């Protein structure tokens, strides 16, 4: 019998929306599902995970797990997978899902597929579709090994239909063993408080090199605020130090697929396009009519962003009234 273990994706101590997308998928497909949540102060999410379809919620809650490290996280998931009898482990794609998925493939003697955007399931017969070659092709793969299937799914691949919490059957995991050789020392800079997470936002406004500097970034920021959008950036902007690394959209940073993606002064290098072309609606402003971003834009404005953005902010305010 197939059984899915959903690995909850957390920000701080809160479960993020991509986890609810995975649980919605297994719930609607009627698949037997457990969940595991790892971190510090994460026990509180157990009822939410149960309400959304996890029969048993495995919890590894410890101060030493506040930040991701491959070894203890993998150890906790292995423990949960063994207790649960899981035949598949589902992760959400994030900066660390490749490290984690690869480690799990060895520790669970299974196989790992990343960046999945479509799943066809017949028990443990799985066909996964994933973009490859900077999203220039789609690759359909299957598992040719009897071991556990480890599948990392991109956010937005499935819709989330959140359900109210209910009392969970909780199993507390033993504190997983870390690896003293790789010590996580903390964050270089704390993320701006209150900033919307790129992986969860319905709308993302993103700035590219065309903003020319920190003043340009500040010109666009109010547009993100007015739209209730998360604020992202291209690699060029992040490497220049105008925006934090946590804001970086693209294959090098965060792969996103919001309902609406607004690219301001982003030319559209392939790594950027690969990171956002799954967005449902794409709006682009660039003064270069030949910029590659227009090849994916549903609405393109060939215009000077320094003139266009203030008008956009004004128009958003008008329509939001």
């Amino acid at each position: 019998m197939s059984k899915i273990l959903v690995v909850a994706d957390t920000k701080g101590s809160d479960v993020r929306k991509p986890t609810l997308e995975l649980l919605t998928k297994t719930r609607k497909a009627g698949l037997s599902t457990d969940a595991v949540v790892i971190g510090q102060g994460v026990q509180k999410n157990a009822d939410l995970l149960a309400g959304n379809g996890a029969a048993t919620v495995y919890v590894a809650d410890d101060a030493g797990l506040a930040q991701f490290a491959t070894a203890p996280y993998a150890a906790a998931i292995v423990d949960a997978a063994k207790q649960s009898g899981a035949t598949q482990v589902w992760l959400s794609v994030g900066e660390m899902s490749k490290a984690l998925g690869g480690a799990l493939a060895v520790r669970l003697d299974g196989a790992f597929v990343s960046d999945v955007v479509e799943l066809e399931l017949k028990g443990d017969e799985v066909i996964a579709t994933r973009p490859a070659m900077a999203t220039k092709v789609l690759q359909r793969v299957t598992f040719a090994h009897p071991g556990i299937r480890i599948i990392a799914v991109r956010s937005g691949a499935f819709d989330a239909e959140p359900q109210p919490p209910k009392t969970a059957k909780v199993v507390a995991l033993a504190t997983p063993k870390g690896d003293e050789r790789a010590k996580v020392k903390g964050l270089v800079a704390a993320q701006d408080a209150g900033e919307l997470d790129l992986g969860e936002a319905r709308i993302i406004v993103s700035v590219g090199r065309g903003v020319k500097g920190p003043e340009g970034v500040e010109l666009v920021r109010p547009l993100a605020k007015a739209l209730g959008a998360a604020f992202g950036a291209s690699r060029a902007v992040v490497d220049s130090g105008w925006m934090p690394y946590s804001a970086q959209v693209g294959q090098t940073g965060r792969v996103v697929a919001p309902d609406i993606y607004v690219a301001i002064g982003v030319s559209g290098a392939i790594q950027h396009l690969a990171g956002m072309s799954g967005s449902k609606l794409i709006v682009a402003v660039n003064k270069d009519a030949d910029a590659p971003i227009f090849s994916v834009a549903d609405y393109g404005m060939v215009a000077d962003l320094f003139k266009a953005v203030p008008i956009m902010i004004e128009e958003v305010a008008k329509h939001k009234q």
Partner: protein
Amino acid sequence: MNIVVPIKSVIDVELNIRVQEGKIAKDGMSYIISKWDENAIEAALQLKEKHGGEVTVVSVGPDRASESLRKALAMGADKAVHVNDPAAEDSDSFGFAKILAKVAQRGPFDLIITGKQAQDTDMGGTGPILAELLGLPQVYNVIKLESDEPSTLKLNRLGHQGQEMVELKLPALIAANDSLNEPRLASLRGIMAAKKKPLDVLKLADLGLSPDEVGAKGARVRTLEFQPPKRRAAGKKFEGDAEEVTRKVMDLLANEAKIFA
């Protein structure tokens, strides 16, 4: 510090990629070192320049992989190992990692540096699997690297919460992001010198591997087919006076796309 850098020769993804009968069309394609692997080579060379030691580049692939290895030697790597065996073709991440583990174990090493993923599959499994097979600690998605003493690396990685600091004791494996460095170009002198550097060509049998363990036969993940991407419907592009264009598009976003509804 002895460093092993696995590199992959891949189709240049900047080119126009076509799919024919479920496969990537190979005609007219050119091959390059996968982008993130170049960052791995550069990081290894910088560490060697600081602490001494040797950089060994390794590639598993057909004949053309030797061109990528020569390029890495021209950049400054000391030795190359080319695993060129038809039975290794169509390996999955696990298969590549098994082969690379055997190559790494041929000599003492302090560090393995991989790219964060290869540009052809974008799968990203090989490095993490390799680390686990060798029992090494690993740090993925490294964007900054400092090393005052050769036994420890001070790393920043692009993690879930932004830039995270990690201290890593060697031996270990790290996976490079392209923000880590700007890979150097090979100098003419480097290109000449590369011709005389050792490039070992190995078969699976030389590594004690059977053809069933790797390649298409040993693959745990099998590709069924490639498909062209789903085309987006052609968009609308507006040019002209900035204010007119902006008001027009904002009106369409409100009334046609109904983004404020």
